């Protein structure tokens, strides 16, 4: 009978193993061999778009709960949206790690102010923040607003303020930002597209 090394070992070990178990009089409990439960089974799926580069990959965001009234949604996983014709479910290392961006330890949670000369941040309420910023803005606008240039042309410009608008904001937020800033007379505004 021809037998290679592996078969020989198999026969040896199977035969002996069986006999040894009988000899020992007891056998190991069947250890469960189940895979980790599929964690998205009942998670809530929302379609969104990756906020990084301009490929605008479709993403599926999975969160806990079912959006019922008393449950807070917590994002547990983000992966590519296979329906999206551009990324077709794939994601790059940035996109695949989006969950850690959403849950970054450096997310801001409340308004803060650092007062002139101070070494620290101070937590303030939204009301206080908006009131203090608006007071600064109005005082500056009223003081420095230019209605006309030296040639008498109406220019209605607020020259002492500048703004940078986020390229990661949605079109809607961006539009609203432009609309309000222009209404205030801001001409010094720019966005990441420049740089």
């Amino acid at each position, binding site marked *: 009978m021809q037998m290679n090394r592996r078969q020989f070992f198999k026969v040896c070990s199977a035969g*002996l193993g069986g006999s*040894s178990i009988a*000899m*020992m009089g007891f056998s*190991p409990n069947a250890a469960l061999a189940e895979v980790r439960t599929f964690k998205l089974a009942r998670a809530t799926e929302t379609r969104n778009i990756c906020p990084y580069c301009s490929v605008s990959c479709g993403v599926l965001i999975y969160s806990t709960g079912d959006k019922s009234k008393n449950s807070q949604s917590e994002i547990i996983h983000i992966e590519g949206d296979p329906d999206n014709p551009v990324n077709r479910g794939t994601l790059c290392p940035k996109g695949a790690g989006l969950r850690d961006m959403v849950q970054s330890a450096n997310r801001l949670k409340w308004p803060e102010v650092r007062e002139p000369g101070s070494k620290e941040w101070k937590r303030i309420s939204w009301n206080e923040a908006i009131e203090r910023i608006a007071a600064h803005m109005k005082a500056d606008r009223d003081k420095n607003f230019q209605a006309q240039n030296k040639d008498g042309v109406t220019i209605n410009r607020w020259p002492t303020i500048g703004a940078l608008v986020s390229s990661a904001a949605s079109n809607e937020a961006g539009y609203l930002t432009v609309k309000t800033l222009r209404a205030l007379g801001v001409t010094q505004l720019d966005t990441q597209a420049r740089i």
Partner: protein
Amino acid sequence: MIRDPKDLKRYDASERANHWVVGISFILLALSGLAFFHPAFFPLTQLFGGGTWARILHPYIGVFMAFFFVLMFLRFKHLNKMTDADREWLGRAKEMMDGNDHNMPEQGKYNGGQKMMFWCMTLCMVLLTVSGIFIWRAQFSVPVDLARFGAVIHAAVAAIMIAMIMVHVYAAIWTKGTIRAMWYGTVTRAWAKQHHRAWYRQMTGK
């Protein structure tokens, strides 16, 4: 069994304690080691609180045993020097095993077989300790090939060692009147005269 004041002192208390410390350690090591060696023995890990505990304990028991084995080695090594009589005894060991010890040469405290066993165990113990270190991942990290080599050596030597201990134990059972030497430290003069006549003479002057 009646204890007789004239029984011969074979082991003092500390020697006996040393022996049993090593012996118990060995039993624990064998039981846990076998569990890792062959699936059939894996349930033995239950004796140690499960597989993980067995894995954690085994090497520490090993170190413990190695330490006490060294003590034992130092105690007994001078008694285990091989002599011509031992060699002759070994040459005729088959007669002995057949239960026919009439023509065996006179033996001192230990016969040739016991001395042989002593040295073999010492060798095994060294091999087991060194190879055990190679595969003790929780404490040491060695190149993978060394670990693989260590695993083979550890397994093979351990099997040999277990077999030897089985022979050692069997010999003690088979030779009636022996085990008490490790319990109370004494043997009967008859036992000594029968099995270790040279030692008997030395002890009794007869």
